[in-house]
């Protein structure tokens, strides 16, 4: 006899559970962790390099870089002063909580203060796979165009901060900042955003200040 079984379980429940484990493990080890998401080439690795240059004098930092193949980005992070682990996703368009867990196994976690995770360059998939990081950050960039919040709403909904990179290119590209920010506001009202240029260094101070505030805040709670 056919019977109906009601389930109503999130399709991401297994991943969410592992993300919860990652989160507890990272906190117990005293790490503050950030997941950086963006489309390919938006400047994730460049921003990690800038962030490392500013923070490695004061903090011990690990970087985990997710890519479909190669270790170019982990090499860049290591060059910039992090202890870096590369995740090759073997074709997957995102890092999931399980991959992050395996990468964490390769690090002596209590040694570090901060973990920076570079997700795979993709504007759709990483949004639905939580990792268990303390903050999720999205990096948009000027050459991508001002319509991205309208076309990729899922990505903008649940992030904690938005960087708008490559503002040095604003004079050369038709990018309507008001239109862009209106879309962002619709999806994520009150989202803190930082216009930056990894090339000129403009705006990086504000991002670093915010990040350090978040780190200090997490220590007191």
């Amino acid at each position: 006899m056919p019977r109906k079984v009601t389930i109503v379980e999130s399709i991401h429940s297994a991943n969410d559970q592992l993300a919860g484990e990652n989160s507890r493990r990272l906190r117990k080890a005293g790490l503050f962790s950030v997941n950086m998401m963006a489309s390919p080439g938006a400047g994730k690795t460049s921003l990690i390099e800038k962030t490392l240059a500013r923070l490695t004098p004061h903090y011990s930092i690990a970087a985990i870089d997710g890519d479909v193949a190669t270790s170019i980005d982990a090499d860049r992070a290591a060059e910039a002063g992090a202890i870096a682990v590369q995740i090759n996703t073997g074709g997957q368009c995102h890092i999931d909580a399980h991959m992050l867990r395996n990468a964490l196994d390769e690090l002596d976690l209590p040694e570090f203060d901060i973990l920076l995770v570079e997700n795979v360059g993709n504007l759709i998939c990483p949004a639905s796979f939580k990792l268990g990081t303390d903050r999720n950050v999205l990096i948009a960039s000027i050459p991508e165009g001002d319509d991205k919040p309208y076309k990729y709403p899922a990505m903008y909904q649940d992030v904690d901060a938005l960087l708008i990179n490559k503002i040095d290119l604003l004079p050369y590209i038709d990018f309507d900042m008001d239109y862009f920010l209106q879309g962002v506001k619709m999806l994520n009202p009150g989202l803190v955003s930082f216009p930056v240029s990894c090339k000129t260094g403009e705006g990086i101070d504000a991002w670093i200040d915010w990040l350090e505030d978040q780190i200090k805040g997490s220590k007191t709670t």
Partner: protein
Amino acid sequence: MHELAITEQIAEIAIRHGEQHQAQKITDLYLVIGELSTVVDDSVQFYWDLITRDTICEGAELHFKRVPAIFRCQECGKEYRLADGELQPCPFCQSSRMEIVQGKEFHLDSIIVE
């Protein structure tokens, strides 16, 4: 290529619940997917047939219920949808203060077992 990962997750949930209910076989799965949640295309059915071979899910049919995104304007209170798949300010009063009423769903609602 996240359809494979998603398909595996669907199978894991279905098999776990099927076994809890002493199912010999799962014949149908009812999935609810909000327009804002994620992109899932027909390749799910393809992966499904591959990865459920020799499980209680073999041959089961996947039914997708797509839930459109609905926004409620915080200014005038009216509800509206995406325009051609794209976000838009309130078409009635142009306000961009809105809340998402539905469209973020992504779950396995129920299964039919034998």
